[in-house]
C-alpha cells in the first residue's frame, strides 16, 4: 500500500491552559487534494504550523512523506502561509530568487513558477506596491518553486478577485497530475472545497471529527426533504410525519425531514396524498458539504450545551 503523504497519530498541542489539538489523527493520501475545514479557532493554523515544523506537538507522531519532520525534509515541501510572508522592499522576482536560493533551486524554476501563477508581466513590481491578490500569487509561486512533493496552503484564494480565484482553483486541481504533488489546503469557503478537493477533513474543537474522500461523504444516501404545506394542514402533516421521521418544527408552512433516505420520498408523497394534505412544494436535497459542516457544528454545539 502506498504511504500517506501526511500521517498524524494522536497529536496533542496546548498553549498555556488552552488545549488546541486533542488526540488528533489525520491521514492525507498521496496524490490527493485534501481540504482542511474548520471554524476560526478550530486549530487549523496550529495544525499547519506543526506540519511546517514551526510548532512542536506536545504529544503524538507526525510524519510527512513517510519521514518525521526535519530540516532536510523541508526541501520537499512547499507552503503558503495565511498572511503571506514577504520582504516588502524586494520585487516579486527578487523575492522568488531569494526563496529559490534558500531552497537550493536553479534560476529557471523562477520563470516557470511566475508563468504558472500568471505574474510574468508584474515580476519587476515591488512587493510593497502589489495588491493583496498579486502578493497571494507571489506566495503561491514561492510554494510551487521546484515542484515540491507536498504543498501546504493556508487559504490559498484569500484576497483574490473572482477570475484569480478560478485560476488558482484550476491550478490546484491540476497540481497532483502536473507535478505529482499532494496538496493540503485549509479554507473557509465550502463551495471552493467542493470544487477542488478530493478529500476532506473537518476540524472542530481540536479534533478531526470527520475525514474521508469527498465523494464518499457526499454520496451519503441520507438527505433532506422539504415539504411546503398549506397553512390549515401543517399540524396534521407534522403529526403524520413525525411518527416515522425526524421532523423539524414547521416554519412558514415548511416542514423539513432530516436524514431521510431518497428511496422513502415516494412513500411520504403518497401518505400526504392519502391523508388529503395539500402541499405545493416537495423538494429532496442530497447531502452537501455545507449541510454536513453545519450539522457537525450543530451537534457539537448541542453536546457542549448539554455538558
Amino acid at each position, binding site marked *: 500500500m502506498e504511504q500517506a503523504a501526511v500521517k498524524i497519530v494522536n497529536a496533542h498541542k496546548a498553549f498555556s491552559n488552552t488545549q488546541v489539538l486533542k488526540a488528533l489523527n489525520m491521514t492525507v493520501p498521496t496524490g490527493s487534494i485534501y481540504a482542511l475545514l474548520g471554524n476560526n479557532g478550530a486549530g487549523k493554523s496550529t495544525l499547519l504550523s506543526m506540519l511546517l515544523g514551526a510548532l512542536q506537538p506536545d504529544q503524538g507522531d507526525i510524519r510527512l512523506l513517510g519521514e518525521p519532520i526535519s530540516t532536510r525534509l523541508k526541501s520537499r515541501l512547499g*507552503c503558503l*502561509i495565511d*498572511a503571506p510572508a514577504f520582504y516588502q522592499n524586494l520585487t516579486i522576482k527578487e523575492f522568488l530568487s531569494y526563496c529559490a*536560493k534558500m531552497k537550493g533551486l536553479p534560476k529557471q524554476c523562477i520563470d516557470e513558477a511566475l508563468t504558472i501563477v500568471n505574474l510574468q508581466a508584474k515580476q519587476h513590481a515591488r512587493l510593497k506596491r502589489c495588491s493583496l491578490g498579486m502578493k497571494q500569487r507571489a506566495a503561491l509561486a514561492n510554494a510551487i518553486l521546484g515542484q515540491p512533493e507536498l504543498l501546504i496552503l493556508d487559504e490559498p484564494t484569500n484576497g483574490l478577485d473572482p477570475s484569480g480565484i478560478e485560476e488558482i482553483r484550476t491550478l490546484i486541481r491540476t497540481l497532483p497530475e502536473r507535478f505529482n504533488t499532494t496538496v493540503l489546503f485549509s479554507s473557509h469557503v465550502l463551495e471552493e472545497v467542493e470544487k477542488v478537493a478530493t478529500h476532506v477533513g473537518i476540524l472542530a474543537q481540536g479534533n478531526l471529527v470527520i475525514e474521508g474522500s469527498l465523494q464518499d461523504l457526499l454520496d451519503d444516501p441520507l438527505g433532506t426533504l422539504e415539504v411546503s404545506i398549506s397553512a390549515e394542514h401543517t399540524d396534521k402533516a407534522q403529526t403524520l410525519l413525525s411518527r416515522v421521521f425526524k421532523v423539524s418544527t414547521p416554519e412558514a408552512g415548511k416542514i423539513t425531514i432530516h436524514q431521510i433516505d431518497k428511496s422513502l420520498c415516494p412513500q411520504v408523497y403518497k401518505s400526504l396524498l392519502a391523508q388529503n394534505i395539500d402541499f405545493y412544494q416537495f423538494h429532496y436535497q442530497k447531502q452537501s458539504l455545507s449541510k454536513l459542516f453545519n450539522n457537525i457544528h450543530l451537534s457539537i454545539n448541542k453536546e457542549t450545551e448539554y455538558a
Partner: protein
Amino acid sequence: MLKHTLTILLCECTKLKRQWLIPLLFACPFAVISLNFLVTFERGLDVFAEHGWFGYISANSTLWLGLMLPMLIALVTTIIHQIEHKDNGWLLMSSFAISPILLCIAKFFIVFLLIILSNLLMVCFIFISAWLLMQLGFPKFESADISFLQFFINASITSLPIILIGLIISKLINNFAAPICAAFIMVVFAMNLSRSENHWFYSPWTYPMISIQVADQTTTNLAITLSLGLSAVLLVTVCTLYWWRHKQVA
C-alpha cells in the same frame, strides 16, 4: 557547509536591498566628522595648536566609539531583525531547509561586516577631513601618535559584544523603540563608567573607547580580551536563542 553558509549570507544580503540601513552607514560617520570639522574650523588655529592632530582625532574617536557606533549597532541589529519580525518573516524562514544556527551566524556576520564598513568609512572620513583642514591653512597632518590600523581593528573587535547583545535584544523584542532606548541608556551609563579605571570593564559599551587608548597598552589588551571572551559566550547564547525561538515561531 561553508558553501551553504555563504549562500545564506548572500541571500540575507539580498534582503538589505533598498533598506535605509546602507545610507545610515555613511550618514553616521559623516555626521561625527562634519560636527568635529566644523567645530575645529570655527575655533581656529589657536585652539587647534593646543592638542594638534592628536586632539582632533581623539575628539572624533570619542564621539564615534562612545556614542555613534553603539547607537548605530543598535539600529543595524534592530533593522536586521525587524525585517523578519514584519510580515511573518520568521515563519517563512522556518519553511526553508536551513539550520537556524546557520541563519543566526549569517545574520551576525552581516551586522559585523556592516560595522567594519562603517569603521572603515570613519577612518576614511578622518583622512578626508584632515586633508580639507590642511587646504584651509591648518598644519600638515601627522598621525604618528595614532595607528589607524590599530584604531580600525580594535574598534571592530570591541564592537562584537555590543553587536551580539543588540542581536539578542532585537530578536526577543519585536519593537523598534525598546532596543534603541536600551542602547541609549547603556551608552550614557558607559560614558560615565569609562572614566573609572577600576570599573570600566563592567560595561561592554566602554570597550571600544578603552581599546584605542594608546597610552595604556595593558588596558587596551584587556578590553580586547574581554570583548573576545564575552563575544564567545554571547554567540552561543544568540545561537541557542535562534534554535529555541525557531521551534516556537508561530
